C-alpha cells in the first residue's frame, strides 16, 4: 500500500469518526473555480419535474370534480338548498374526491416549493399557486383574476391553494354558497370543515389552477438548474420558517377549530408543509454540497448538519402532531423561533458558500 493510499484510508476512517479536515481546508488557496457545469444538478431537475407532473395530475383531478360539481349546481339553477336536497350523495362524493385531490396536490407542491419559490425564474408560480395575497396588497398580490361563467370578474382573489382549500373546507364565507347550511356529508349536522363551495368560483379557480400547474410543468421541463439557482433557492426559502410557524400558530391545529385566525391550512397542518418544504431544500443542498465541500469542507459539513437538524426537528413536530399531540401557542412560538434562528443561520452559511465559490446569488 503506498503512503498516499494509507493516508487516504486514514482520512476516510477518521472522517467516519468525526469531522476533521482531510482535503483542502478553508482558506488554503485551493479554491476551485465554480461554473454552471461544475455540479451535476440533473437530479434537482428530475425532482422538480416529477413533482410538477404529479401536481398537474392532482389538480386535473380537482378540476374534474369542480366541473362535475358545477354541472350539478347548474342543473338546479344554482339553488344550493335544492342542490343538497336533491343531489346530496353526488355532492358529497364530488367534494370528498375534490378534498382528496387537494390533499394529494398540496404535498406535491410543497415538496418542490423550495425550488419553485426560491428560483427567481419560477417564483411567480409560487405567488399564484401558494403564497400570493389578494388585490388589497398589490405588492404581493397574485397575477391572475378570475372570470366566472356569468361574466363576474374577481380581481386578484388570492392564491390558488387558498381559494380551493377555503372553499372546500368552508372557512372563507366569500367563496361558499350563501344562506344554506353546508351539510355536505348529508348526516344532518354541520361540522368544522364542511364547505359548500360557490360552484362558479370553484370552477373558475380550479380551471386557473390547472392552467398554472400545466404551465409550471412545462417550464420545469425546460428549466436547467445551475448552482446559482440551487444556492439562491436555499437562501431565499430557508429563512421563511418563522412565517410558516407563525401561520401554524394561527391555524385550527394550534388555535383550535373555530378559533383559528388563518382561513387556510385546515386540510393539512402547516407543519406538514414545513417538513415538505425542508425536504425539497435538503434535496437541493445535497446536490450542491460537493461543490461547497471542495471549496470549504468545514462550511459544507456545518450547513449539512444544521439542515439535517432542522429537517429532523420539523419532521418530529409534524409526527407528534399527527400522532395526536397538540401544541399551545406558547410552545409553537418558542419552537418556531428556534426553527427560524436555525434557518437564518443556514441561509447565512449558504450565502458565504456562494461567496467562496464566486457564484452570484440571484435577485428574487
Amino acid at each position, binding site marked *: 500500500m503506498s*503512503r498516499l493510499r*494509507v493516508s487516504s484510508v*486514514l482520512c476516510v*476512517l*477518521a472522517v467516519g*469518526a*468525526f*469531522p*476533521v*479536515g482531510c482535503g483542502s*481546508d*478553508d*482558506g488554503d*488557496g485551493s*479554491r476551485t473555480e465554480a461554473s454552471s457545469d461544475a455540479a451535476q444538478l440533473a437530479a434537482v431537475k428530475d425532482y422538480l419535474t416529477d413533482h410538477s407532473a404529479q401536481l398537474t395530475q392532482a389538480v386535473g383531478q380537482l378540476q374534474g370534480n369542480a366541473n362535475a360539481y358545477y354541472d350539478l349546481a347548474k342543473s338546479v339553477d344554482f339553488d344550493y338548498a335544492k342542490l343538497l336536497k336533491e343531489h346530496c350523495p353526488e355532492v358529497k362524493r364530488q367534494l370528498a374526491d375534490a378534498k382528496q385531490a387537494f390533499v394529494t396536490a398540496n404535498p406535491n407542491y410543497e415538496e418542490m416549493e423550495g425550488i419553485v419559490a426560491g428560483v427567481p*425564474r419560477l417564483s*411567480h408560480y409560487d*405567488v399564484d399557486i401558494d403564497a400570493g395575497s389578494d*388585490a388589497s396588497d*398589490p*405588492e404581493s*398580490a*397574485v*397575477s*391572475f*383574476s378570475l372570470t366566472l361563467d356569468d361574466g363576474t370578474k374577481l380581481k*386578484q382573489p388570492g392564491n390558488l391553494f387558498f381559494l380551493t382549500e377555503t372553499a372546500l373546507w368552508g372557512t372563507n364565507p366569500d367563496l361558499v354558497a350563501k344562506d344554506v347550511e353546508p351539510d355536505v356529508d348529508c348526516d344532518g349536522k354541520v361540522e368544522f370543515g364542511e364547505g359548500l363551495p360557490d360552484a362558479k368560483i370553484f370552477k373558475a379557480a380550479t380551471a386557473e389552477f390547472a392552467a398554472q400547474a400545466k*404551465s409550471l410543468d412545462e417550464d420545469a421541463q425546460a428549466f436547467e438548474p445551475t448552482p446559482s439557482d440551487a444556492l439562491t433557492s436555499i437562501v*431565499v426559502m430557508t*429563512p421563511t420558517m418563522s412565517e410558516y410557524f407563525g401561520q401554524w400558530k394561527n391555524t385550527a391545529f394550534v388555535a383550535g377549530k373555530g378559533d383559528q385566525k388563518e382561513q387556510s391550512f385546515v386540510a393539512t397542518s402547516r407543519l406538514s408543509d414545513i417538513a415538505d418544504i425542508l425536504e425539497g431544500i435538503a434535496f437541493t443542498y445535497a446536490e450542491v454540497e460537493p461543490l461547497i465541500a471542495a471549496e*470549504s469542507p*468545514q*462550511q459544507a*459539513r*456545518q450547513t449539512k*448538519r444544521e439542515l439535517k*437538524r432542522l429537517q429532523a426537528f420539523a419532521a418530529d413536530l409534524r409526527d407528534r402532531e399527527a400522532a395526536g399531540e397538540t*401544541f399551545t*401557542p*406558547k*410552545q409553537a*412560538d*418558542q*419552537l418556531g*423561533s*428556534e426553527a427560524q434562528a436555525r434557518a*437564518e*443561520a443556514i*441561509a*447565512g*452559511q449558504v*450565502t*458565504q458558500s*456562494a*461567496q*467562496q465559490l464566486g457564484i*452570484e446569488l*440571484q*435577485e*428574487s
Partner: protein
Amino acid sequence: MSPPLAAAVALVVLAFAAPAVAAPPWQIADTIRADLFDAQTELLLAGPGEQRASDAGALDDAERAVSGAFGRDLARDAPSALGELRASLTAARSSLARGDEVGLAAARGRAIAALRQGAFAVAVKAAGSGHSRAARAWLLVRDFRQSTRFTRPGVDATAALIGMADGDVEPPDAALQVRKDLLDAYQSRLATNLDAAGQAGERGFAPRFAEAAALAAGYWAILEPEYRAQRGTAEATATGRDFAALSRAAVDGDLAAFDAARERVKRDFSGFTAAPFTPDEQARRAGQLTRFLDLIPIEYRDGTEDGRVTIPFELQEAVAFHDGIEQSFADLQSELAEIDPAAVTAVERDLDKLGGYIDDAHERVAIVPEEDVEALHDRISDRLDGLFPDAWKDGGSEVDYDLVAIAVDQLVAAANAGEWDQAEQARLSAYAFFEFGPEPELRAFDPGLVVDVEGLFWYGARDSEGLAALISSRAAPSEVRETTLDLTDALDEARAQTGEGTSATTTIVNAAMIVFREGLEAILIIAAITASMVGARRELRRPIYRGALLALPASVAGYVIAVAILGSLQRYGEKVEAVVGLLAVAVLLLVLNWFFHKVYWTEWIAGHRKRGKELTAGAAAGAAAGTATVAGLYVLGFTSVFREGMETVLFLQALQLASGTAIVVAGVSLGLAGTALVGLATFKLEQKLPYKRMLVVTGVLIAFVLFVMVGNTARSMQGVGWLPVHTLDVDFPLWMGTWLGVYPTVETLGAQVLALMFVVGSYYAAEWYRKNKGRPAAPAAQATKGASSSAIAGDATRSPNGSPGSGRTVAPASEAISDPADQSQALSPRS
C-alpha cells in the same frame, strides 16, 4: 503488523478517543446550542411534574465541550466571554434541575450570545495576526443579519478572509472587515431580539420573552467596546445598566419594567452605528437620501391636484421614496449628530412631517397643497446641504440603480394587477433613472451593455421581449417578470462594471473610442453638408468649419454650465434629451431647407453671372449668400458638432471621475488624432469624387441624418411620455435602433416617414410652384447647378436683386443628375 498499518490503527483509535479535541469551533458551538435547546424543549413540552428522562446528563456534553482547544482559545482572546459561557451553563443546569423554563431560556440566550462574543474576538484577533485558517474556523460560529427577500446576509468578512488567504488583503484590513461585518450583524440581531422580546412579553410567552431579552443583552456586550469608543465610558456604563435591567425584567415577567428599559435602550442607541460605514457607503446613503428627497415633491405634484388625488401611483412611489429616506437617514444620523445635533433633530422632525403629508394623501385622509410639500422639502434639503460634508454630495450611480430597482418592482406589481398605465409609468420612471443616472458612465465602459439594458426597457434584447412592447401588448405578467429578471441581471452587470476600477489602458482606449465614435458622427454630418460646396461655393465651407470648431470649446463650456444649473433643472432632467432632440430636428429641417433653397439657388445665379470669373467666385458667393446665410452656416456647423460634443464630454466626465484627468486626456488625444485623420481623408476623398456622384451622396447622407435624428427624437419623446408607444409586431435587430434610429413602434417609424415626406414633398411643392407661377423656364442645360438643392428640397426663388426676369428655375433632380452635359463642369474649379 506493518508500520503504516500500525500507524493507521493508532490514529483511528486516537480519533475515537478524543473527538472533542479535534472538533472544530462551529461544531462545539452547535453542540452547546443544541444541548441547551433539547433540554429546553423537553421542559417546554413536558406536562407539569412529568419525569424528564435526560435531566441528569442533559448538559454534560455542553460543559465538556467548553474545555480543550475551544476553551483555551477563548481563555486567551475572550476571557470574559468564556466566563459568561460557563456561568450561563451553570445557570442552565440549575434551572433545568428546578424545572424553571424561564430561567433555562434566559441562560440559553446568555450562552448563545457568549459564544458569538467569544468567536467574534478570536476571529478578529486571528485575522489581524494573518492566521486566515483560524479566523475562518472561528468565523463559522457567527450569526447573521436577518435575511429577507431584499437583504442578504453580509459576506464581507468571508470575502476579506479569502482575500487574505490569497494574499490580496492585508491582515489589518481583513480584521477590520471581519469586525465590521460582525458588528453590523450583531447590532441588527440586537434590534430583532428586542422586538421579539417585546412581542413575546405582550403575548405572555415567558420563556421566549426571557431568552430574547438575554440575547439582546448578550449582543450588547459585543457592541459595548465600540459604543464606549464612540460615546464615552459614562454613557456605555449607563447603557449597560439599562440592558441589565431589561433582561432582569424579562426574567421576572415584568412587562412594564421591560418596556421602560427598552425605551431607555432605544434612546441610548439613537444614532449609534456599531459598524461605521466606509466613506463610500456614507456617500451612497447620503446620495440616496438626497435623490429620494428630491423626487418626493415631484411625485406629490404629479399625483395630486387642487386638494385631490389624481394619480395614486405617484403617491405610492412617494411613499416608497420616503421609506428609503428614513432608512438612509437612520444610517447617517449618528455621523450627522456629531456635526450638528440640533439640525439633525430638526431634519428628523421635518422628515416625519413630510412622511405624514405623503401618507395622508396616499390614504386620502388629507391632501395638503403641493407648495407645502415643496417648502418642507426645501427646508430639509437646505439643512441637509449644510450638514453633509462635501464628499457626500455626489452619491454616484449606485443610488440610481437603487431607484431603478424600486421602479421595476412597482412595474411588476402593476403588471400583475393589470394596471397597465401604472406599469408603463413605472417603466418610464425606471428608464429615466437609468438614462440620466448611470448610463453615460456605463456607455463609456461598456456600450454593448447599454444597448442590452435599453433593449430590455424597450423592444427586446437577450432573447427577451422588451418591457415597452410587453406592456403595450398587455402581455402575461409572467412574461413581464421574465424580462424584468433579465433586466435585473443586466443591471447587476452594469453595476459591477461601473463600480469596478479599470486599468489606465482600458480608460485610454475607452476615451479614444468615444472621441473617435462621436467624431465620426460629426464628420459624417459636416461632410454631407459640405460635399456639394465646390467651385465658387467652396467659400461657404468656411463658416461651417468655423462653427464646427467653435462647438468644441462650447461643448466643454456647455457641460460646465449644465452641471452648474443641473440642481435646479433636475426635475426636468428626463425631458432635456427630448427637447434637445426636437430642437436638433427643427434646426436640421429648417436650416437645411432654407440653406439649400436659398443659398444654392442664389449662388447658382451668382456663378451663372460671373461665369468665367472664377477668381472672384468666392467673394461673389459670399456676397450672394449674405450675412444671414453665413450665420446660418455657422449655426449649422456649430449644432452638428455641439450635439456630439456634449455627448462626448458627458461620457468623458464619467471616465475622468473613475480614472483621473491625465489618463482621459491621453485617450482623448488619441481619439482626436484618429478623428482628424479620418476627417482629412474624408474631405480629401470628397474633393476627388465626381460632382454628379457627390450630389447623390449628399442627398442620401442628409436624408439619412434626418431620418436617424427623427427616429431617435421620437423615441426620446416616448421615453418621457410625450408620445404613446404602439409597438409593431416586427423584430428589428438592435443595431437598427443604435445606428438607424429605427424602432418597432408606430410613432417612431411614422415620424421618420413624415420627415422624409416633408423633404420629398417640399421638392414637389417647389416644382408645382414653378410650373404654376409662370416663371420663365430655364433651359435644362443651364439649370443643373441647382440640382443638389433640388434633390433634397427643390425650390425656386428670386435672385438677390429681386428682378423676376433674372430668376431661374431649378430642374428636377433626376433631370439634373442624369444630364449628360454635366454642367457642373462650368462651376467646378476642376473645370
